[in-house]
């Protein structure tokens, strides 16, 4: 006799509610918005689905293409910086003593327990002209200036401290995006590195590899699935970021999600907003499909 959980009825009873939920609250609304992307505005609030492609044509205007390009650039830079910053963090956690590992992992996850809005405002307090980064730099500048004056080199550091402009520009957006998305990079990397058999690293060293060669030829290739998952988990949400460029960015650092938000709210142009949203989604799916094709080609090459 089959165990009770193998019974078809159990499968349907347990499977139906989530399926209905996804259908009713995800797929159907998404389908409605998809239909909106083929609609024309009628009056102030009305619209009619006419099957027009005008919204998509408008989205391909150089003005919007540039913003798409900028979004990809910001998301790409965020992914690269997160990877470079996250890899040592993940390695440090893996190689930490078992007693400290849960604590360090907790520290990585801890920011999730705070609202994104609050974290972003806190970042403003750190980065602004009268913020903590500039306070610290000014303090260092004053000590340096005083020290240089003592040894007879007054004024080498300039007449007065020039605060760094860290906020309301593209750098601020990337800093903010990296800050928000770093845990999404560290956790998959940690999972990949934690599974890695230490004796593989020892074997590479034993066979004469330098630490760097062992890292390059053994650790990175074996952590590759983690690198890919981390990159996807960072790149896709970063691409659709809305709050970070809104609060930290300057006038020319808005991303595509800011434009979409404006269509739905300020401009009240739902069809165009829907077209932009779906264009972003198509591009994301395209990037994922490309990755899948590339990785299949890679494993086919390895097997052959």
């Amino acid at each position, binding site marked *: 006799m089959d165990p009770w959980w193998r019974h078809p009825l159990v499968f349907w009873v347990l499977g139906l509610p989530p399926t209905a939920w996804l259908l009713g609250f995800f797929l159907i609304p998404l389908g409605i918005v998809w239909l909106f992307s083929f609609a024309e505005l009628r009056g102030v609030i009305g619209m009619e689905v006419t099957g027009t492609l005008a919204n998509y044509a408008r989205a391909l205007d150089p003005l919007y293409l540039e913003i798409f390009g900028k979004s990809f650039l910001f998301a790409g830079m965020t992914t690269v910086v997160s990877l470079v910053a996250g890899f040592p963090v993940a390695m440090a956690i893996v190689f930490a003593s078992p007693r400290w590992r849960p604590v360090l992992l907790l520290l990585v996850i801890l920011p999730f327990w705070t609202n994104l809005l609050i974290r972003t405002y806190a970042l403003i307090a750190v980065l602004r002209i009268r913020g903590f980064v500039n306070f610290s730099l000014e303090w260092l500048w004053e000590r340096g200036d005083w020290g240089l004056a003592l040894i007879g080199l007054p004024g080498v550091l300039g007449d007065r401290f020039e605060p760094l402009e860290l906020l309301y520009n593209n750098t601020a957006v990337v800093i903010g995006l990296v800050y928000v998305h770093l845990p999404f990079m560290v956790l998959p990397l940690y999972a990949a590195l934690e599974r890695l*058999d230490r*004796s*593989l690293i*020892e*074997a*590479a*060293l*034993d*066979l*004469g*590899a*330098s630490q760097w*060669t062992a890292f390059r*030829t*053994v650790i990175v*290739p*074996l952590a590759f699935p983690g690198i890919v998952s981390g990159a996807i988990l960072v790149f896709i949400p970063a691409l659709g970021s809305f709050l970070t460029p809104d609060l930290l960015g300057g006038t020319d650092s808005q991303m595509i999600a800011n434009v979409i938000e404006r269509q739905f709210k300020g401009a009240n142009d739902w069809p165009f907003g829907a077209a932009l949203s779906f264009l972003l989604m198509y591009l994301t799916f395209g990037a994922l499909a490309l990755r899948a094709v590339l990785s299949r080609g890679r494993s086919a090459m*390895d*097997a052959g």
Partner: protein
Amino acid sequence: MSTEDPIIEIRGLTKRYGSLAAVDAVDLDIRRGEFFALLGPSGCGKTTLLRMIAGLEMPTGGTIRLEGNDVSAVPVNKRPVNMVFQSYAVFPHMSVLDNVGYGLRIAGVTREETRHRAEEALALVKLAGYGARRPDQLSGGQRQRVALARALVKQPKVLLLDEPLSALDAKLREQMRLELVNLQDSVGITFVIVTHDQSEALSMADRIAVMDAGQVRQVAPPAELYEFPANRFVADFIGSVNLIEGQVESCDAGIVTLSCPDLPAPVVIRQQVTYATGTTAWLALRPEKIDITHEPDGDGTSNLAHGVVEEITYLGETSVYHVRVAPDVPLIKVSSANLDRVTRRRFTWGDNVHLSWTSECGVVLDR
């Protein structure tokens, strides 16, 4: 074959973890070209010692000399020794050929020569033609051969093997023992193997170091280790042994007389030692060296005891009889070949039996 010329000289080697000494002031010479085994119970420090020779652990004190040069401070990737790991540590993301060629490739050997030498090494471990396979397409035994080839291709001065057979099933283990010995013979490289399995060490090694609690208790060829253990630990660890406590009555001209309160007469053993009279000592006597009979053995030159069979362990080719010779002392184990079928067993529970062994059997140990 081994000569007296040591390739590795270890002096006062110590590794401490906090207050615990995993390896405690070990002195050891390993000779050029020999098959050397580090044998001991788990946690005795044998793997730590091997990893210090490899350079994977740095000693807390003492020196390791390789061909006369102090390598104690040389990092792992600069030492001309290579290791076969217990888990084999075959790189899962590389083909067999790339695994074997790894050490050559990163040393800057040309692609052509790397390929050539890697294929040679694969042929040496009987894996010719497996170069294109992925490690996950290999059995455990084949992965181990890849690990062996990968280490041997570097032509190390010493090959270190950490429990190389422990992950294989019993049949394959027997076969690999023989193959490792033949391989070592043909390449002529010094092998140092770590094992907790005494039959593995006895069957493969030219010499064995028995370790316990971070210290080397005895270094000797297998037969010497078995027949002339240096102390009770080694006697008890290698094979099975009866340890009977007594006092040295006399020790002179290669004859030791030991009076044991549990035996009817002093035991006479032919052994070249000098023990002071009255020293507490132990007779170490292997079970298969004792004769067991119903009637007293009459030739008058043998050592004698008598008792009652209390337990019998049937092991197929032999049976072990546990004989009580005195109350409140350990039973004496006597093993006897089952020449007849068991239905006609010579002795049974409760039988009064006589035990005898000659002065050439067993040794007297004072520690």
